[in-house]
C-alpha cells in the first residue's frame, strides 16, 4: 500500500495560517497530507507539541511563522527559530531523521509558497518513509 505521510503543522495565526488560507481562496491545489494546528505565534510552539506529534505517529512536523522582522508580536519567530535549532539536535540524537522536522517562514501573502512547501515536504517525507517512532516506542520494550 502506498505510503501517505501525515504531517502535523503548527501555523501562526497572522502570517502562515493566513497564507495557507490564501492558498485556499486562490484555489491552489496541494497534497492532502498536512494537518494544521493554529497557534497565535510561532513563538508558542513548545517542543512538547513537536515530540507529541511524532510520538502519536506523525511522519513529519512543520512549523511556520512570519518572516524574520515581520513577526506580528515582534520577535516570537526568533524564539521559535532558536528552539527549532536545539530541537533538531535533540531529535537527531534520538535517531529521528532531522529532515522530518522543518521550519519555514510563510507570510500572509504567500499562498503559493505554502502550497509548494506542502508538496515538497510531502515528497521529502515520502522518500524518508514512514516514521518508526510510534511503533518502536510501543513494541521495542521487550
Amino acid at each position, binding site marked *: 500500500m502506498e505510503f501517505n505521510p501525515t504531517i*502535523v503543522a503548527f501555523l501562526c495565526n*497572522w502570517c502562515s495560517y493566513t497564507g495557507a488560507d490564501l492558498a485556499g481562496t486562490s484555489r491552489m491545489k496541494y497534497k492532502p497530507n498536512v494537518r494544521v494546528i493554529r497557534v497565535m505565534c510561532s513563538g508558542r510552539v513548545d517542543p512538547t507539541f513537536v515530540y507529541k506529534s511524532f510520538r502519536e505517529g506523525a511522519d513529519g512536523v512543520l512549523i511556520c511563522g512570519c518572516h524574520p522582522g515581520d513577526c506580528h508580536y515582534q520577535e516570537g519567530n526568533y524564539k521559535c527559530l532558536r528552539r527549532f535549532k536545539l530541537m533538531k539536535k535533540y531529535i537527531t540524537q534520538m535517531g529521528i531523521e532531522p529532515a522530518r522536522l522543518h521550519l519555514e517562514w510563510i507570510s500572509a501573502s504567500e499562498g503559493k509558497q505554502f502550497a509548494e512547501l506542502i508538496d515538497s515536504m510531502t515528497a521529502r517525507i515520502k522518500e524518508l518513509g514512514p516514521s518508526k517512532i510510534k511503533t518502536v516506542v510501543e513494541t521495542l520494550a521487550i
Partner: protein
Amino acid sequence: MEEARIGVYVCWCGNNIAKMVDVELVTELIGKLPHVVVSKNYKYMCSDPGQELIAEDILEHNLNRVVVAACSPRIHELTFRKVLEKSGLNPYLFEMANIREQDSWVHDNREAATRKAVELVAGAISRVQYHEPLDKRSVGINPATLVIGGGVAGMSAALEVANAGREVYLLEKTEQLGGMVSHFDLTFPYLYDADKMLEVMIRRTINHPHIKVFYNTTISEVHGYIGNFETTIQSDSNQEQTLTFGNIIVATGLRPFDASRVGQYGYGRLPNVITSVEFEDLLRTGQVRTKEGNIPQNIAIIHCVGSRNTEFHEYCSRTCCQVALKFANQLRSLLPDSNIYDLYADMRAFGKGCEELYTATSKKEIIFMMFDQQHELPQIIKSVAPGDPPMLIFFREKISGLGLEIPADMIILMVGMEAHPDVKDIAHAVGISICSNAFFIEKHPKLDPVATTTSGVYIVGNCQGPKGIPDSVAQAKAAAARVLATINQGSVHVEVTTAEVNETLCCGCQTCIMVCPYTAIHYDREKKVSVVNEVLCKGCGTCGSTCPTGAIRSKHFTDQQILSQIDGLMKMALKIE
C-alpha cells in the same frame, strides 16, 4: 472538569465544502466519538437558520461545547462565538475546524479531503473539551487620534476626525503638508487644479482648532494598545513630547520609483529624460522647456517605468496611465504643434471619466504606440550625429512587430510608486506588517481594507497600495469613521487569550521577563514570582513556551489544549487507516 457535551456542526458552505468533502460521512463518523452529543450538517452554518440550529441544540441537548467545521476561523469564529454568547454559553467554549480554505478548496481527491476533514474535526473535538470560559475585558478609549503623514490621505482623515470634535495629532516627516500632490499641476481625469484643491485642505488643516500639526517629525516606538497608545516624539525644536491617543491612522504614502535603476532609459545621464514628478513641477511653472531652455518639438511619454517588471516591481502603480493621458492633453494644449508620442505597455484607464479622457486624448493627434513590457523595453540613446534629434528611442512596436526609431527632445518617464525606505521602521513602531512589496497589510483585502490586524491601527492612502486621490480620500474617511465609531463606543474589548502565571508553581527564575516584547511581565520581589499584566499582554504565547516549569499558561492555547488537539487528530488518523 465537567463532562463535555459537544455539539458538532459540519457546514456544506453550499457547494464549496460539500463538493470535495463528504459532509454526511464526516457527520456520521464524528457522531461516534465520545462526548459528541449532537452531530449535524447544514448548508450554510453562518446563516441565520444555521446559527439558530446551534442555539436550539445548546438548549435542547444541554450542550456545553460547540465545534463548527466550516470555513477558516478567521472568517467566522466571531460569528459563532456570538451564537454561544446569546445562548448563555461562554463564547470561548467553541472551536472551529477549517475544512474549506485548508481542505475542500485545496485538494482534488474527495477521499483524501474527507479523511482530512474527519481528522481535523476530531482534533477540534479533543481540544474543545479543555477549553475554559474566559471573561471579556474592556478598556476605555482615549479620544485623541494620531495621524502619521500629512499628505492628502492624512489630511482627509485628520479633518474628518477633527470635524467631529475630536483631537488629532498629525505628524509630518517634512517641513510642509501636502505630500505627493503638492507636486501636481492638474489632476486627472477632469484636469482640476491640484494646487487650489490642496491649498484649501492645507489651510483647513493648519487652522483647525482640533488638529495639532508636528512638522519634521517621525514616529518611533509606540507603546500600549487600542484606546491607550503612547509615544514620545522629537520635533524640529528638538524638544521631546509625549503624546497619548486611542487610535492611529497611518498615511505615510509612497515615493516615486528611482528611474536611474532602468539603465537603458538614461535617466541621470541624459538631461532631458525626466520623471513624471519632475514633469509635474515643470507644468506648474507654466512653461514646458528642455534643460537648455528650448521648446521641445518631439516629446515622448514612456509608461510602466519600474512597474510590471519582475526586475523592479511586479505590481501596477495604478495611476500612471491616466497621468500620462493627462500629460498628453496638457502638452497638446501648451505645445499645439509638437509631436507627442505615448509609448505604453497597456493603457489602463478605468474609473469615472478616465476612459472618456483616453478617448478625448486619442483625438488630439497624439501617437499611441504599444511595446512589450516583458520582452523588449524601449532604449533611449543620445544622438551623436549633428542634425539628428537630441535623443532617439529604439523600440519594437508590439502590434505590428516593427522596430521603430522615435526622435525626442524630451522624454517623460512614467515612474511607478514604491515604498519609502523607512516603511519597516514605521511598521515596527505601530505594530503592523508589510507585504512583499512593502505595502502595509490590511486586515482583509476584500472586506476590511483600511483596518489592520492590530486593533486601533488603520492604513489609508498609498501606503496600503498605489491608488489615486479619490480612493485615498475614500479610505481616509473610512478610517476616520471607524475611529470615530470606536471613540463613540467609549470602550473596546481587548484580548482575553492572555498569559497568566500560576504563582503556586512559579519558581521566580525570571526567564520569562525579557521574553515579552510588550514588557507585560514583571518580577514581584516580594512574592518572588513573575506577574503578567493582562492588559498589556497580547496573547502571543511566547512566554508560555519559555517557562521551564509550565507555570505560565497561555489562555486558550494551553499546553493541555494543544496536546489534546494533537492527540485527537492523530488518534483519528490511525483509526481511519
